[in-house]
């Protein structure tokens, strides 16, 4: 390894050790200290665990079925407008689950937007959006694009030779998909199940708003209702154990998935007859209607209704500005931290894998738990760290750095090593090679990573709730506070503003990742 290489590795180790490790240590220590704390009754613990796992199971099943179908339809058929559908289906990816929770609450139940549409047809009541089914619906909406994206990527990588042979042997397309394509997706679907389960058990805002009791809701209840942190940390320990099992599964599956070689040849799409086209379009239409059109229309209706009746939306513009500033800072700092980590993680070996893996662990743990750990750290640290923009920014970096590292790593790994050799043989130093060869080739990926972090930070709820500077509320905090107080108008206005902010970001991200792909 060259000297600059060693320096970068040392810097990466230092960054990971300083950022990602402390919250994990605090969680372990606090869980140990809180082991005697009286939390909830054993029966209740079992109930919460059961509730959480049941929800995860339902969301995994629903989103896997829907997400695989949307991926197959948009990647492997001749469905008209499939490129547009592929983008539209992925839209909910840019919105946090709690925004859909607000929309779902405002959509049905008494006074809901959909309820009022159905009134002329003699239906004057719909059940309120609460409990298991509402939480399942809400989290499925957010999880479908995750499954869709993972499966679509895997489909692009599958060797088309296999299904072409099956077709040559006379199998009908449906049978080819069932017998040839789906079995090859098993690993990807298992990975998707892990990712979605982690999402579900970490979610805090949506399950709270929809009043479904899961572990994160119970942890927050302990934090908010008691004056001692020990019970909250004791419950965190249980949640972290569940998350740990899923993280292990994810790491194992992710490793296997990367082993599949990329194929250059695109597969031949399955031709759809008129009936197939209609069915496919109706299915995708229903998915988009439920996941995007109805939620946004509901938020817009509540906003319009509220403003018309003279509701004061409060300082939402200031809150939007705060959210954007914090996210911008988070994106800059996190990307700067991610670059050396990605450079070090690009190499082979156990150390490189640890450098990449440890931030993922911190990222995958429930943010409420990480937020509580950082809260404890920042109180113990020097006073100027407490409730400061610095701490909030660093906390975002702690949870989101793998997003940026991941984006940059993909680009780095795709650089042909011969290019670097040529540069060096031309007499350029490592530093000069880095600036003149590596930097231009990874610029797009760096930008894509930064945009991802920006997104994530704008929408983040639990960490922001616990660590924000006093006097600087954000949109996420506003949505949360308004829903807890039952102020749907205010919540809708803030949520709609979040949607409005996210749309241009989505476009930017699409372009950035597209260019990253092209550049690589």
């Amino acid at each position, binding site marked *: 390894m060259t000297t600059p290489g060693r320096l970068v590795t040392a810097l990466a180790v230092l960054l990971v050790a300083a950022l990602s490790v402390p919250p994990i240590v605090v969680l372990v220590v606090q869980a140990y200290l809180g082991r005697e704390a009286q939390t909830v009754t054993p029966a209740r613990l079992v109930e919460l665990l059961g509730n959480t796992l049941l929800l995860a199971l339902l969301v995994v099943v629903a989103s896997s079925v829907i997400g695989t179908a949307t991926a197959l339809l948009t990647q492997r058929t001749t469905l008209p407008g499939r490129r547009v559908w592929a983008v539209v289906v992925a839209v909910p990816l840019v919105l946090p689950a709690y925004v859909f929770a607000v929309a779902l609450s405002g959509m049905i139940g008494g006074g809901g937007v959909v309820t009022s549409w159905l009134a002329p047809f003699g239906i004057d009541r719909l059940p309120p959006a609460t409990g298991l089914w509402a939480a399942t619906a809400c989290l499925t909406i957010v999880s479908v694009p995750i499954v869709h994206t993972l499966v679509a990527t895997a489909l692009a990588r599958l060797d088309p030779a296999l299904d072409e042979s099956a077709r040559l042997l006379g199998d009908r397309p449906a049978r080819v998909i069932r017998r040839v394509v789906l079995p090859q997706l098993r690993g990807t679907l298992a990975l998707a199940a892990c990712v979605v389960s982690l999402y579900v058990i970490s979610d805090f805002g949506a399950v709270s708003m929809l009043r479904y009791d899961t572990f994160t809701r119970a942890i927050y209840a302990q934090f*908010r209702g008691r*004056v*001692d942190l020990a019970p909250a940390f004791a419950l965190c320990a249980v949640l972290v154990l569940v998350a740990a099992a899923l993280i292990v599964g994810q790491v194992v599956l992710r490793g296997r998935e990367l082993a599949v070689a990329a194929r250059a040849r695109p597969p031949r799409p399955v031709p759809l007859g008129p009936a197939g086209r209609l069915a496919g379009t109706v299915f995708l239409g229903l998915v988009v209607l439920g996941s995007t059109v109805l939620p946004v229309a509901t938020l817009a209706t509540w906003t319009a209704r509220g403003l018309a009746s003279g509701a004061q939306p409060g300082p939402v513009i200031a809150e939007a500005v705060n959210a954007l500033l914090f996210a911008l800072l988070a994106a*800059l700092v996190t990307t700067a931290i991610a670059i050396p980590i990605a450079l070090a993680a690009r190499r082979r070996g156990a150390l490189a894998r640890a450098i990449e893996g440890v931030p993922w662990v911190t990222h995958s743990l429930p943010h409420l738990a990480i937020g509580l750990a950082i809260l404890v750290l920042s109180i113990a640290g020097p006073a100027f760290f407490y409730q400061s923009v610095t701490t909030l920014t660093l906390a975002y970096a702690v949870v989101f750095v793998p997003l940026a590292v991941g984006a940059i790593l993909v680009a780095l790994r795709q650089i042909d090593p011969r290019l670097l050799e040529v540069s060096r043989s031309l007499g350029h130093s490592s530093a000069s090679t880095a600036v003149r060869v590596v930097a231009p080739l990874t610029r797009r990926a760096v930008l894509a990573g930064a945009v991802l972090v920006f997104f994530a930070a704008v929408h983040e709820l639990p960490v922001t709730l616990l660590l924000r500077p006093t*006097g600087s509320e954000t949109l996420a905090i506003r949505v949360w506070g308004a829903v807890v107080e039952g102020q749907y108008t205010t919540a809708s206005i803030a949520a709609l503003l979040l949607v409005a902010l996210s749309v241009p970001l989505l476009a930017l991200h699409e372009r950035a990742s597209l260019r990253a792909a092209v550049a690589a």
Partner: protein
Amino acid sequence: MRLPRLAVVALAAALALTGCATGPSTTPKADAGEGASGGGTDLVIYVGRNEDHVRPLVERFEEETGLSVDARYGSTGELATTILQEGDSSPADLFFTQDPAYIGAISEPGLLAPLPADIIDLVPEGISGAEDDWVGVTARRRVLAYDPATTPEAGLPGSVFELTDPAWSGRVGLAPTHSSFVSFVAAMVAIRGEDETLAWLEGIAANDPQIFDGNEEQLRAIAAGDLDVGLVNHYYVHRLLAEDPAFPVKNHSFDAGDPGDVLMPTTIGMLASTVHEEAALDFVRFLLSDESQRHFLDEVGEYPLVNGVGTPEGERPLDPSLISGMNLPVVAGNLDIATDLIARSGLI
């Protein structure tokens, strides 16, 4: 061609580096505005009350005094936990709570400073801390919210203890993590003792209650026909009526003296670690001015605690004997007991 491109890359690298550096290096400046010792901020208030009720007053105070106030809005319980974790280094100067029990939890470890007599004397006797280290600002009463169209008033209980009856199975809403519920349980412990309170909580938990995070959500659920009755504070109805005069939910009072019929003052206390004592006391006086008290009466529907400002429309006037019977300083000391009992009953 070569040179400009190199320059661009160098610029990008420089930007990335400064991006890296701006985080930490601008920190002291940013912190000065937010920290306790701050140059830009004259007063830091932790507000455990609905932002919409308090923000207009904070803004008016800033306008009148020219001071700059940073308010942290959140739930009372969340902020109390935060202050206890912060201890002596809390950046907060004042803690404005929704309920008495949480200010008691801050008072117990000696984190609050005594308030001058001119402030304590503004409110009726008994609505302040044992050490005069907190004072009531407004008051709310615990009530049972219901919709007369679906749940006739005649069938409503006179005592909160009747709600454990199987007749109420699945029909009662409550927000067990909300500070107003916790304080209400703390009051019940003061009136009936721990054993009876735990028995009641277990009875409620076994009666298939509907669990909410907040109070207003319950009123909306009642209006929508999804819930029959909810244990809430009286003023939520006033707020929703102001929004929609046709809002169908009404308040039912438990019998006077019943542990269900308790007075819940909102309270404020000054942290002993404050570095803005003068501004903090001015803000407390401002909250107890006729003008601010009228704001809480007119805009929120709460009972002003300063004499002669008025009574919320349709609510029975405050009974001085009932206030002294509440023994609020004891209630304020019961938080740990109340949260433990609620946790033991399985409600959270």
